[in-house]
């Protein structure tokens, strides 16, 4: 009984298990690179390095399951930092400025979705444009300087812990959102529709589903999460620049794809994304500790991205083949049984 349950667990979550093994591997790898890696404080503190990527990956998982992509998230993150800094410099209380920039981030995301839906453009093209546009606006607003002078309660979020534990606040925030997104994707009608539209938007339209509205909403959500990530990063650096988080959208997409979400849409899980986030983060942090040159880090991450695209597809092809084989056998057996019964 237990054995059977275990086998079922392994079969249904094989890719996630693969990620767990990959995570253990990358931890062992990092530990071998640096003697400072395997301590409780290091392990917890390192997470603060990639919680922004994590927050954006959660929403990006939905975007990619929907069969779309959002290249503008890092630009939204930067613009949020810039606008928050300018509001702060202008004397606006952060209590007002923070909701305002989150609303702005959501709006920027909604604009992405609206453009794609209204002009029937691929999101790749639309967000390639807004990626440059949003970051450009940030540069115009702030110029080539940094903005700082944030109040003390806002900055250095990564040095705040749950009292009496080594758990940093960014990790807590990410964990909370991870649970929320898990529920949203796997337990609500909204999440079901994301899968359905990502698998076959045409059939959804015939089923009376407001496909366009769903797409706009998901992009809005992606903008919102980029905004929250923007707040977190601004707090960590205690400053903002127009070019912050440059290129981070690629890490976000790599994370989601490594997490087993199909770039063709229709498949993916939050658990996979979370595991992949820690695989990536561990690798990067370990390599940083061991003073691996940035270009060499890029090679490793680049290889990981290729593996991320190849392994899940190869895995699925293998699964599909073995399932088909099992099914054909089953059908034929059923027919034989029917014949001998009749």
């Amino acid at each position, binding site marked *: 009984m237990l054995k059977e349950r275990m086998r079922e667990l392994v079969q249904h979550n094989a890719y996630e298990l693969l990620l767990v093994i990959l995570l253990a591997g990358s931890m062992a790898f990092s530990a071998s690179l640096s003697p400072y890696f395997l301590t409780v404080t290091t392990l917890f503190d390192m997470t603060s390095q990639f919680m922004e990527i994590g927050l954006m990956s959660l929403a990006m998982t939905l975007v990619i399951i929907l069969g779309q992509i959002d290249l503008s998230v890092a630009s939204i993150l930067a613009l949020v930092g810039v606008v928050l800094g300018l509001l702060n410099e202008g004397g606006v209380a952060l209590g007002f400025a923070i909701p305002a920039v989150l609303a702005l981030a959501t709006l920027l995301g909604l604009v992405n979705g609206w453009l794609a839906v209204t002009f029937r453009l691929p999101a790749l093209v639309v967000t390639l444009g807004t990626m440059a546009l949003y970051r450009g606006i940030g540069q115009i607003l702030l110029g080539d300087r940094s903005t700082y002078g944030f109040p003390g309660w806002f900055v250095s979020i990564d040095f705040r812990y749950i009292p009496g534990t080594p758990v940093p606040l960014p990790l807590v925030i990410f964990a909370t959102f991870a649970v929320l997104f898990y529920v949203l994707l796997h*337990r*609500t*009608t*909204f*999440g*079901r*529709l994301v*899968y*359905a539209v990502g*698998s*076959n938007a*045409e*059939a*959804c*339209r*015939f*089923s*009376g*589903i*407001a496909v366009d509205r769903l797409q706009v909403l998901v992009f809005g959500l992606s903008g919102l999460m980029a905004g929250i990530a923007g707040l977190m990063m601004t707090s960590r650096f205690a400053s903002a620049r127009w070019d912050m988080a440059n290129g981070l959208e690629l890490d976000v997409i790599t994370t989601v794809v490594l997490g087993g979400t199909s770039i063709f849409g*229709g*498949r993916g899980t939050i658990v996979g994304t979370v595991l992949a986030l820690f695989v990536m983060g561990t690798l990067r942090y370990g390599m940083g500790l061991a003073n691996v040159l940035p270009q060499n880090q890029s090679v490793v991450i680049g290889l990981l991205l290729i593996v991320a695209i190849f392994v899940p597809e190869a895995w699925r092809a293998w699964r599909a083949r073995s399932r*088909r*084989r*099992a*099914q*054909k*056998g*089953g*059908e*034929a*057996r059923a*027919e*034989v049984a029917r*014949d001998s019964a*009749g």
Partner: protein
Amino acid sequence: MPEYYRQYTVTPAPSRIVILFGQEAPNGHRELGSAVALGAREPSGLSTRGLTKSFGGPPVVKDMEFELLPGEVHAIVGENGAGKSTFLKLLAGVHPPDAGQVAVDGVPVDIGNPTIARSLGISLIFQEPTLFPDLSVAENIFMGNHPVGRPLPFVGWQRMRAQAAELLESIGARVDPSQPVGELSVAEQQLVEIATALSHRARFVLMDEPTASLTPREVERLFAIIRDLTVRGTAVVFVNHRLEEVFAIADRITIMRDGVKVGTWGVRDITRDEVVRRMVGRELGEAPARPIASPGEVALEIEGLTSPGVFRDVSLSVRRGEIVALAGLVGAGRTEVARAVFGIDPFERGTIRLFGRPVRFRSPREALRHGLAYLPEDRQHQGLILPMSVAHNISLTVLDQLSRAGWLHRRRERELAQEQVQRLRVKANSVSQPAQSLSGGNQQKVLVGKFLVTQPKVLILDEPTRGVDVGAKAEIHRLIGELAEQGIAVLMISSDLPEVLALADRVVVMRDGRVAGELSRSEMSEEAIMHLAVGSDGRAAV
């Protein structure tokens, strides 16, 4: 003179010696000095002995003995899953056989892959044409076989187009060789596939359900081409569900059941009833016409519906408890009318009334909310989400009702799906099985279930039994009858005339975007419907 022609100008009977000399070929080319002597090489044609194939489990094709003679049309019939398609794929080198022997002209051959099959003169034409939509007709025909210039190895485009035109002309296809294939109809694409087969000098053309998406007129044209091919000595294997067509074209019929050959008969030595009986192993009989309903109030009324260039002045009505068939040739505008009513496409003028109230839906969502459901003809792309489970497919239209504040009640979803699966007798192991693992007929039932849960009062069915095997078809017919009895108004778009005759209380026939006429139960016959569909002068105005 095209070379394929010289090689295969042979007569059907292998034992006769025929000498063809200076014959005028149908494509207008003078054929000089071509003498073909047959009979010396006996046996000729394609034969198999003990051909067996399994995909892990018990064999899908078992001990298949088959013989294909030059110039004959050999039909293979059987229910879905009988192993017909697999058998064709074995012959075409798509799958290697586990055991058995294939022989061409009595010489054992090993067909390891499609290239070898092609070099042996075997060409397989799939049910859905597998062409490159963005490439031209000529490029498709010569794909992998481009005429290459000398001394420079560039593609000879002009020569290619000229040869393509020649091939197409030889089968009477009026297709422009430089047109992209994606712009052609399915029927025209099939002609391109046949031309491709000819360019490979195919002696044995295997066709897997070639008529499934053709109109009756297109079927007629395909048959003329097949007959023309056989006159030239090409042998054709013809897999089909529609027995009328099989009896119209085939010389011999081989029946398969559960991977095993039941037998081969000359077309005159067996009746249609007997074929059906041997196919399914049980007596089916023609579906009896259902009793005439006593219809209630008018549920759906369409008046003067017009969308320029698509359909014009379409008026019809369906009462509660009534089944009205919408017949006509493919392209007559039937699906387009349904799509406009359902709110997918806009229309210019006209009124739609639902139980007397004028409505104009801007989206399927609105239509479903008002009790009007449309089951699209394209099950795979518009109907179901194939990778998702049966339960998730069925619940898709009513997710709002299965949730509270967005939270999905998965147990209620499961129960709802199980209810439908039982009611519709869907053959599935469980409702969490992916829809793509079901057979076509069962997928169609899931599609019906998916829209029944919206509790529609008016149901528009578009080709409800296309690509569905005989047994499942009868069940779907019974189901449609039951729905009408429960007071649902049914508008059924169907190209299957026996189906229309068996089910419909009335039939509205469309031609060229207009209503050509309406027939009551007593006036209905296949001839009367076709008469209206193609026009009184016998020519379709397309």
